């Protein structure tokens, strides 16, 4: 609902606005939906001028329908599928992370969400040589662990040749990969929104040097910044959560990014089943949801095996389970 202001379009002068406001027409929607002949009479303005202004306003502010075939062509050319670094997870996600969509990882504490995110960061920055933005809201990002994963991945690739020159080149590759991962620590919802806004500004101005070819945005974790606001009598938390979801989805769609978020799980009562946090409203935001669980279920027998199951997907049947090793 944009307020009518002088200079919105040529022909809309301050006097016109004052006259329109006197008749109760304040926003673009009011103007466009009212009867122009009526206004021309009441405000004693020229009918032609009003029609011209309306045409410009409609062109500026309305959405245009697109052909389905064109949309499909555009989608085919702009969507990329990014490997996550773990073949079984790729299989679960129908060959990888799709750009233009929001993917969610949920699980209990210690189930490996941050590890999977680090694995994605390593595979994207090392394998594909693309930039990645990591928004860390829990303090769980460990650069030394990312370095370990990068080393393990370069070793996998260079298993045949083992001359000193090769290992030196491998080290340089790892350092370059580390430089492509940008980490930003955001500890409350306004900082997250500010960081996303800043990212949007940089991408639209196409500043290549700092952002490079950004393909993935990881937000770990979204429930840490939103849970303190939910509940109680105010609906403010819900409004902010929806603002955040809108930002994430429009970023993903407009700039062809893959957005990954991590979420927590809660229980209804002390013996109820586990369910994802942030409630039903958030469950409509990500297009794909993966639940991570540890095999044993208790803390008495530690292991590095995890089970990932698909809880929501637009392409695959839900309920598929694969084994993951986060070691």
């Amino acid at each position, binding site marked *: 609902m944009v307020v009518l202001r002088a200079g919105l379009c040529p022909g809309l002068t301050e006097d016109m606005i004052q006259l329109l406001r006197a008749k109760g027409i304040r926003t673009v929607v009011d103007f466009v939906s009212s009867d122009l002949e009526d206004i021309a009479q009441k405000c004693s303005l020229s009918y032609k001028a009003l029609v011209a202004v309306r045409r410009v306003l409609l062109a500026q502010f309305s959405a245009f329908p697109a052909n389905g075939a064109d949309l499909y062509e555009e989608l085919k050319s702009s969507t990329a599928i990014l490997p996550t670094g773990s073949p079984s997870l790729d299989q679960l996600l129908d060959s990888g992370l799709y750009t233009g969509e929001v993917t969610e990882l949920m699980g209990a504490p210690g189930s490996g969400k941050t590890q999977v995110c680090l694995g994605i960061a390593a595979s994207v920055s090392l394998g594909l040589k693309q930039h990645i933005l990591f928004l860390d809201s829990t303090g769980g990002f*460990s*650069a030394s*662990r990312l*370095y370990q994963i990068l080393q393990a991945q370069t070793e996998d690739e260079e298993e045949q040749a083992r001359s000193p020159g090769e290992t030196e080149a491998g080290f340089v590759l790892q350092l370059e990969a580390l*430089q492509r991962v940008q*980490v930003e620590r955001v500890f409350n919802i306004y900082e997250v929104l500010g960081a996303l806004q800043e990212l949007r*500004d940089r991408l639209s101005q196409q500043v290549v040097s700092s952002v490079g070819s950004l393909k993935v945005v990881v937000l770990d974790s979204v429930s840490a910044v939103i849970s*303190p606001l939910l509940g*109680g009598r105010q609906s403010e938390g819900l409004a902010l959560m929806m603002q955040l979801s809108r930002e994430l989805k429009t970023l993903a769609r407009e700039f062809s990014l893959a957005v990954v978020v991590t979420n927590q799980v*809660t229980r209804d009562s002390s013996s109820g089943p586990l369910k994802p946090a942030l409630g039903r409203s958030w469950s409509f935001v990500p297009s794909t949801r993966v639940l991570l669980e540890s095999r044993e279920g208790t803390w008495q027998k530690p292991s590095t095996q995890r089970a990932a199951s698909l809880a929501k997907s637009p392409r695959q049947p839900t309920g598929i389970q694969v084994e993951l090793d986060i070691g």
Partner: protein
Amino acid sequence: MQREVGTLPLAPALRARLAAAGFQTAQELLDTGPCGLSKEIGISREEALEALQVVRQECQGDAARTAGGSGATRKCTALELLEEEQSQGFIITFCSALDNILGGGVQLTKITEICGAPGVGKTQLCMQLAVDVQIPECFGGVAGEAVFIDTEGSFMVDRVVDIAAACVQHCHLIAEAQQEEDHGEALETFSLENILSHIYYFRCRDYTELLAQVYLLPEFLSEHSKVRLVVIDGIAFPFRHDFEDLALRTRLLNGLAQQLIIIANDHRAAVVLTNQMTTRIGQSQSTLVPALGESWGHAATVRLIFHWDNSQRLATLYKSPSQKEATIAYEITSHGFRDVQPPAVTASAGGTELNPRKRPRTEGEKQ
């Protein structure tokens, strides 16, 4: 700035009025100015001025970040973070097995949570860490001070004296063995009185006091910039008894967790919390799990669970971003928190005694 009005940190009533009046982006607000704004929405001039100041601050913060400015921004590449992490010290626990599974000791800028049944040694470890954080850098410590927030009243000063005395003696032995210059100087400042005077002790009796204390902590830490450890002994206790509204409890705990991680990050301090255990009654069996619910489990970056196994104390690393899960054994001696001494070595005096203050565990008492 194209920042949406809904994403700015304004009061909800004000935001609702702005949306009703048709404002969409922050730029429109700034263009209107305080007089126009107060007329359009029907608020006083002072309120409009305040709101515009908030908006301007947010937009300036965004602009500074876009331009690549430094300052209070917490943005860097992973390479810079790696260098920072590698040069950061750890707070050692004097139990080498525990230090190994933690990757060197208790990490700074992270929240570590210690859960365990009563009597297993959580407060002992907290007191040990409050002494260990003060070890001078030439001996491998971080040379910091400690803040101890006690909610259960289990902090015993004479026990800290024992632990500190043992620590000072240990450092003396190292200095004698290695004979380096700076060791002598460091030892002069590392005395019992100094150690005790650099542990800042706060006693909180209920959850309101605890929340207030954590709220005031950033100011305290800015004045005492050498603090490298914040211990909250017993975060479960004030939240478990006498709390009717569980949704409020979850909200408060989540807010507390975020505040603590901000403190840990901004002041480069380690935050250590102790938690209690509760029983979860399942279908066919009951298990001991950490208290305060599932959502609290995500608050800590590193989680250690202390438990018993036939009168042997064990520590399990349950959650860590960079280390594998593992279990080790430890002991509480009269000198403090230590490794389990292998039975062949009997030379170290008093190394295998159990802590005389806790009653010994017998087979019949354990469930």
